[in-house]
């Protein structure tokens, strides 16, 4: 099987986000980049499918800055065979990213049997790229997937929806599957894996190579701002058993009279 995995590099979840003075962009100089946490599940799933289907290859694809290829090397250290990077700035919208991913997959010369990604990138939180890419490639897609089993031609996946309910889909491959936490437990890259990854092929393409230009931009962002700071709240000490009941009564009263939420 030809298995593709789309990965993104995103700011570490602990990173403080700092908009530029005029709010026109996000300062990136002090950001620590990591592989998008949901994409780790996608890489793991690709490797599991590969192991179950002899002769399969796993190719990782990313659109982003050339100076930071860590996510691709990490995926190859986990076991992926090769990688494609479409070199681009960080301000592409979902449509452009999906179009670039499609271009890179086509440039690989291999017809995908399965494309995996995380359900969402934790920087723009758009949840669009898997569905857009699938539509552009005329493939079925299932997103927010927490369960995967099946063969090289037919799979059964579970999609998590409201209230913890699961929709169970039977899917004919080729297809696009976007993974959620719970689908598997990603492996760590071993030291030999990390050494080997350095020698695995990584092809760099430009946006022009994959046919993406400014004319493809659909979504324009501006005015990046931190959320307004909340004024300090009221704090009550209820460690003294004698006062507990009164404190709780006071707070419940405030929820009705002041906050008006009960």
């Amino acid at each position, binding site marked *: 099987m030809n298995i593709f995995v789309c990965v993104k590099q995103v700011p570490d979840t602990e990173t403080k986000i700092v908009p530029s003075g005029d709010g026109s962009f996000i300062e990136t100089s002090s950001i620590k980049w990591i592989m998008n946490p949901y994409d780790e599940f996608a890489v793991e799933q690709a490797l599991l499918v590969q192991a179950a289907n002899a002769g399969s290859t796993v190719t990782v694809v990313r659109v982003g800055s050339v100076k930071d290829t860590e996510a691709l090397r990490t995926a190859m250290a986990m076991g992926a065979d090769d990688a494609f990077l479409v070199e681009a700035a960080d301000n592409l919208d979902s449509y452009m990213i999906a179009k670039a991913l499609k271009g890179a997959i086509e440039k690989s010369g291999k017809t995908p049997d399965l494309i995996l990604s995380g359900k969402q990138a934790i920087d723009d939180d758009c949840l669009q790229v898997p569905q857009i890419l699938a539509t552009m490639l005329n493939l079925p897609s*299932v997103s927010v997937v927490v369960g995967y089993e099946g063969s090289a031609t037919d799979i059964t996946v579970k999609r998590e929806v*409201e209230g913890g309910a699961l929709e169970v889909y039977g899917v004919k491959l080729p297809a696009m599957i976007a993974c959620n936490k719970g689908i598997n437990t990603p492996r760590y890259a071993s030291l030999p894996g990390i050494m080997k990854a350095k020698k695995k092929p990584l092809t760099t393409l430009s946006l022009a190579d994959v046919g993406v230009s400014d004319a493809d*931009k659909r*979504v324009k962002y501006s005015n990046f701002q931190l959320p307004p700071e909340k004024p300090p709240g009221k*704090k*009550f000490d209820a460690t003294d058993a004698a006062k507990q009941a009164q404190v709780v009564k006071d707070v419940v009263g405030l929820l009705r009279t002041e906050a008006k939420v009960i």
Partner: protein
Amino acid sequence: MAKILVFTELHGSHVKGVTLEILGKLAGHTVDVAAIGAIPAEAIADLAKFGAANVHSLKGANLEKYTPEGYANALKGFIAGGSYDYVFAGATSLGKDLLPRVATMFDAGMASEVTNFIMEGDKFAGTRPLFAGKCFAKVELQGPKPHFVTVRPNALGMNANPTAGAASVKEDAVDAGAIRAMIKDIVKGASEKLDLTEANIIVSGGRAMKDAANFKILEEMANVIGATVGASRAAVDSGFAPHAMQVGQTGKTVAPSLYIACGISGAIQHLAGMRTSKVIVAINTDPDAPIFTKADYGIVGDLFTIVPIMTQEFKNLLGK
């Protein structure tokens, strides 16, 4: 003035609340609403009250249950005949999955999960959170029309449309086309209650809950005040609660009017999911827990004594 379609989901005999929130915000524009399948009279009355001009019930084979391809093909076919400028939907499980597919069928762009927006004439400008709510930005759309937008539930609030009148109801035949990802089964979730993403009140427990059985005290409180129960990742990873209950960066993003955090420290990844709650109550034994910096009302104390007392107080207040 823009010509707008709002796609709605039905929940029994009602439309989802987020649809009414969107309609209220679109007062002054010509707004059609479409749903897949038959639309109950109660739902139509609600839609009319909030300003829908025309209500379309889209009917065709293989649309009894949601499938990404079936719904996308059906909606695309309907939209193509309508010369709409914008298509809105709620940022629900279904909306978030469906709309990007349909947008791409029109080569169009989409703004995900906006928390506010304005229409200036026929130009849309939205606000949306990025980086799990650590930052907000203005979002605009360009390129081929219609433009697509999903709106986060509970973010806009309910504003009935003052010019609302009666809505006309039409049935439209649509084609689900070829479906390669077929739905085989729907496994019911742990909770029959309103999903966290739509809940108006949430009571969440953290690592301090110690085990799954202790969540009973949160459920008792939730039953009294009509809340949905959530959990921190530490509670989920320790097996006290299913992942569907997790609030935060790798869980659900919620926007209730009241969020009660019990024994949750307030790690940045947890705040990411619940910081847009309108009012936050925190119960924690550690007076320096970071959650207190975000809480409107903080109670320093042991949740195992405080929560039952609070439940009783709510009962007294609500006469239950």
